[in-house]
């Protein structure tokens, strides 16, 4: 039965993906059909994959959990529950995005074509997460990226749309090239490109695992490049020249593929100190750069885009630390959160003009007192479930970094709530945090078991490279809290002003991006004469 269901999901995904082959004019005449087919298929695949994933998790993991032993990697499942979870995530996001686009793009003469590429991008994204070898992964992933390219250029006559789309094109092709290289090396040296085979490899069994290291590094580069990580992130905020649902799909679905691949290959990748160091370094830089830029952007979609950069960065940081379970929760939470944020970006006006600060600034003693109280509370709220439910221990350095960030965040939030002087809301807030933390750490434990992670790199002095990377990365992310404090107390000096201006500019990486894309764009433009404009924006040009 499981096999049949897996096959059905695969067929459904291919069916969606194949819609890329429908010619444009036919697609535009069959808008309604494309919508119904898309929604129907997505709903079915969401249900099927969720049920199947649930069954697998329930039957095997929970049993072994009670038995208090780790499950064995079972080869009877050709599709791991991780992939099933991702398929259901993509399907759910896809349903919301497609449903949104029905009314949002109503009246656009090209709407059918929009759904054609939307369905096909979703189909290829599902095929990407269903892949069980590097070649399949490579093909499906590149196809997803090309379908997204068409969606990003939905209004091809907008010059700014070209910058974002071609910027993404460059980053994706860098990713493709390194993935191809990884696949070739894997085939030549190991004779296999199967993902599960890679995961079963033990670095320790090799005297000099150079080829393994090379494969791991190349895959890590591909994952980082395709998930808009620093320094290839600058195109992401430039992709708002396309209808909002495309941005939602991009930020909630497609951009996570790199993270998914890293999680999928975590047992393999986390054995390599270089790959994990790459994840930790570039992840934490992206988290830092993205978070600061997010805070300064006055335009809602730009701000959300930088937020994506930072969230994905943080997720890579977690993978680097060896906590792919946490990373998986992060992907799921971020996808859903970001999809909702984009689709509701039109409501931002309704939420403004709130009173920002209490009328009088608080006295120093009050600030100090509340900070202390908040810290104690935060350690309790996060630490207790982390220790008992999540099986995390503060003595392990990797866990410590992860917990420290979460405790700091919680402490900040509670402190602000205490200062606002509303005990009821502080209580509710603390309760919410406890519930959230308990759910989080239970899920964390479950996913860690499910992914059968190796727990990441052992922190020893021999691994000094990774150790330095981890310490620096953690410090970088914790710096964000220091900056936040400075902002809250309205400290202004030249250094902060400089940082502010740099963040406002996204640390200037868009200027390089523009220079590069201009070079590519000009050639491509000549090959691709602008299509005749149709629909109701023809007048605008």
């Amino acid at each position, binding site marked *: 039965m499981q096999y049949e269901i897996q096959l059905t999901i695969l067929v459904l995904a291919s069916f969606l993906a194949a819609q890329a082959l429908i010619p444009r004019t036919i697609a535009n005449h069959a808008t309604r059909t494309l919508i119904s087919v898309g929604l129907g298929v997505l709903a079915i695949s969401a249900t099927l994959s969720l049920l199947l994933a649930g069954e697998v998790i329930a039957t095997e993991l929970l049993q072994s959990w009670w038995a208090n032993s780790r499950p064995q990697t079972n080869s009877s499942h050709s599709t791991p529950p991780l992939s099933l979870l991702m398929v259901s995530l993509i399907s759910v996001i896809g349903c919301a995005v497609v449903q949104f686009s029905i009314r949002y793009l109503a009246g656009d003469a090209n709407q059918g074509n929009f759904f054609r590429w939307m369905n096909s991008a979703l189909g290829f994204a599902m095929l990407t997460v269903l892949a069980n070898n590097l070649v399949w992964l490579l093909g499906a992933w590149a196809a997803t990226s090309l379908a997204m390219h068409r969606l990003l250029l939905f209004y091809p006559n907008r010059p700014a749309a070209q910058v974002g789309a071609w910027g993404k094109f460059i980053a994706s092709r860098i990713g493709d090239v390194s993935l191809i290289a990884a696949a070739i090396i894997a085939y030549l040296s190991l004779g296999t490109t199967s993902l599960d085979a890679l995961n079963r490899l033990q670095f320790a069994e090799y005297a000099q695992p150079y080829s393994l290291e090379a494969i791991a590094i190349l895959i890590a580069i591909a994952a980082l490049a395709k998930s808009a990580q620093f320094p290839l992130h600058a195109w992401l905020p430039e992709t708002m020249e396309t209808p909002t649902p495309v941005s939602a799909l991009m930020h909630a679905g497609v951009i996570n593929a790199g993270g998914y691949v890293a999680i999928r290959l975590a047992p393999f990748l986390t054995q390599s100190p270089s790959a994990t160091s790459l994840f930790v370094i570039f992840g934490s830089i992206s988290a830092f750069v993205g978070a600061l830029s997010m805070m300064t952007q006055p335009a809602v979609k730009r701000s959300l885009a930088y937020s994506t950069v930072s969230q994905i960065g943080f997720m890579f940081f977690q993978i680097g630390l060896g906590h792919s379970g946490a990373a998986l929760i992060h992907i799921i939470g971020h996808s859903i959160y970001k999809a909702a944020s984009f689709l509701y970006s039109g409501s931002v006006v309704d939420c403004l003009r709130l009173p920002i600060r209490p009328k009088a600034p608080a006295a120093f003693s009050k600030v100090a007192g509340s900070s202390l109280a908040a810290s104690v509370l935060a350690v309790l709220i996060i630490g207790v479930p982390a220790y008992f439910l999540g099986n995390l221990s503060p003595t392990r350095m990797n866990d410590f970094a992860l917990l420290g*960030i979460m405790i700091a965040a919680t402490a900040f939030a509670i402190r602000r709530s205490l200062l606002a002087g509303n005990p009821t809301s502080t209580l509710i807030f603390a309760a919410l945090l406890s519930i959230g933390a308990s759910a989080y750490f239970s899920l964390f434990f479950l996913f860690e078991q499910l992914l059968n992670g190796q727990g990441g790199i052992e922190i020893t002095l021999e691994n000094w490279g990774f150790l330095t990377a981890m310490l620096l990365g953690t410090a970088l992310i914790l710096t964000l809290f220091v900056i936040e404090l400075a902002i809250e107390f309205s400290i202004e000096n030249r250094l902060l*002003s400089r940082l502010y201006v740099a963040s406002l500019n996204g640390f200037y990486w868009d200027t390089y991006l523009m220079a590069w894309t201009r070079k590519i764009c000009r050639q491509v433009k000549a090959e691709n004469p602008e299509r005749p404009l149709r629909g109701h924006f023809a007048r605008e040009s």
Partner: protein
Amino acid sequence: MSTLLPIPPITESTETCNSEKGKILLRDVLKADLLEVRNRLPSLWPLADFVAVNPFFGLTENSFLSAKQKLSKWTDVDTLMPLDYFREKIHRKEVSLADIDSALDSLRHINPEVTISLQEILDELDLVSLDSNRQAVRIHSQILAKISAVDWEATFLHEVTKYCGSFFDEGQATWKITKHNKDLYSYWRQLACLDKRLDLIGLRGFRELVDSLPTDPIDTIQLLLNRMELPQEIWGDYLTSLAFANFGWSTFCRRYDAERAAESGDTLTSLIAIRLAFDFATYEALTSHERRSLIESYQEGSDAEASWSASTSLQARFVLQNALEMRHRSQLLSNMALVQDSSPRSKESPRVQMVFCIDVRSEIYRRHLEGVSSEVETFGFAGFFGTPIKFSPSGFDHSISLCPVLLTPSIESSDTNSNHSTKCSHHDSKSRRKRMSWTNWNRFRSSAGSSFSFVELFGVSSITKLAKGAFSWSTEKTNGLTHLARQGAEESDIAITTSGLSETAKVDLAENTLRNLGLTEGFGELVVFCGHESSVTNNPYRAGYDCGACGGHTGAVNSKFIVSLLNDCTIRNQLNSRGISIPEKTWFVAAVHNTTTDEIRFFGINRVPTSHTALMSDLSDWTKSASECVRSERVSRFGMQNDREVIRRSKSWSETRPEWGLAGNRFFIAAPRAKTKDLNLRGQAFLHNYDHHSDCNGKILELILTAPVVVASWINLQYYASVVDNSKFGSGNKTLHNVVGGVAVLEGNSGDIRFGLPWQAVHDGEKLQHDPFRLTVVIEAPRSRIESIVARHQHVRDLFEKGWISLVATDKQSAWQFVCIGQWQELSHEATDAKTSTSNTSWKSSSVMS
């Protein structure tokens, strides 16, 4: 060519101006120029208070035709529809050759600018239009953009949006450099000298340039203009071109200055100084030959201006535009003439009177409500009902103005739970704390460090938001000011309280409203004041659908307030002594008309006296059936299956066309309702009650002509311009909208903030939902009275005389069109002509909409 030569910073020694006195003189000239720039610009209101604005606001002293020429000095913009539009209208037989001929005939008599012949118009129509889209050179960055690989125009727009966006931000960004005691210019100057972006793109030395600029924006403008050696006579036009280069922000600054000039200095001048600094930087990169070309282009322009005559293409389109408008005007007048004889107002006063806003959407509702019950009489009056309220929901630092933007609110009010009015301050601080905890939650979500943990702990809970959206469950759950104002107004037990309003002032308000409404006698048993509001979901242009007369907000607060005055015994007694006797059996009720779902909600039903409850329940039945009729009329306009979809559109999270707003507006009729009763005006007319017999001194007419007519002209021209040139005067494609600073929208990544209406607000994907016709104001009053009022108000006079909107006076037999003071053109012949040729049914069938 992407890297330019380093820009030398400015040193005092290179100052060209020699004498101190000359400097001061020049400064005065410059100030006058800057004032002129300001006066040429319209205003743009922030999204939360979005109201329609006449984009040609500063140009109304020019004739409609020559405004195009004026505008083209500063920017590329069109003021008339393309010939294709008129070709299609002719093809569809919506306008005939005879119409064009007669339009041409009458235009030739009154407008010396029209010199075209009928044959030339026909030739134009036959030609394939080859509009030479020559991009004129107006500022230096445009010259540089042409010869360089970098699109400097776009780059500078990005810079302007970056700094203006963060300066005017109302709370979107979490991190802001506080702008305490700083104006826009010094804010920019402080940050731009740290900003490497332009250096990296190729303007090397820009930071040093910024650093060397004076601290005062006017000094900067003067210095840079001198350095660029621009002749003084082109300063005004050059600076206007700079302002038009970022039209959205310039218009936003203009409004911002008008509201709070004292607090934050002169933001428009700051913006011009900033834009000038960019232009100066590109000027430095040009060769002396290239620099010359700018000055030449302006001088060329001013030579052409002296001997200007409208091109044939422009004239042809102008005549065709007039022909279309005249055709529809004469149809309206002939239909009104038909009604006039038939139904005199019945002596007996009706049992229920309902006062609606003049909004064109009210027309549809009033028509159907009158059709449902003959016992209801309806009135049209500006939807704030004469009460300019400044409303502060409890617990907020901000307040909103519930009145037309032409007025300053004089009544301070708040929402308080009437049962706990003594605990007012307690209530206030409690709701403040509640809001504060929301702010904290938002900070947890959007701060740099904690956003990661937020996503991990609570990210998945957003699935409920997605489900809510996809299944259109209730989505109204925000804590913003505008939303709370709405909520406070909706709950019926929340009363509107005012502070510091004397008894006499209250009586004055009540008296003025009733007198201006023309309701001083013959009160029914129930008199309903019905404001209006919209209910849309996830739409930044929400305020645009709300009541424009209430400053883009709900009209519920105003209607509740006026009703509370009129139900007050002491006020009624005082009114009695002033000659308005409201019978004891009359009870006033507040209501609000939801224009998206076309439902009517009454407030304070439990306070209605028991003697009136039967009538009240009848009334609510009537409004229910009227609502159904209105919705079914809407179904045909939308091309929908059934009227459930009307409700669905209001709740849908992805709806770009929840309703049609004021699209289709083209008439303003100030006359007794009897003159328009039983006419299907199809939501195209603003209806204002006016009976010239009870207005001997013309005070009420003066008010109508200077306030509601002006507001209607703003709305009409906003719609007109958004259709005619959506790229400049409209806000483009709604699916790309990107809210910036909570105050405006960008289209896409960056660029300028957008002015006007989105294309989706005027076009349904297949055809225009708003045909761009200029407003025709029809007033039933003696011509001499109208003329004397128009003569007194220059702005109104310009609107009518220069052809921005047109004015028709009607009496029992004839209709006259106003040409200029002392000249009227009789339309009665035309009207009767139309009467014989088109019957009442053809008014419906010769539909322009369908």
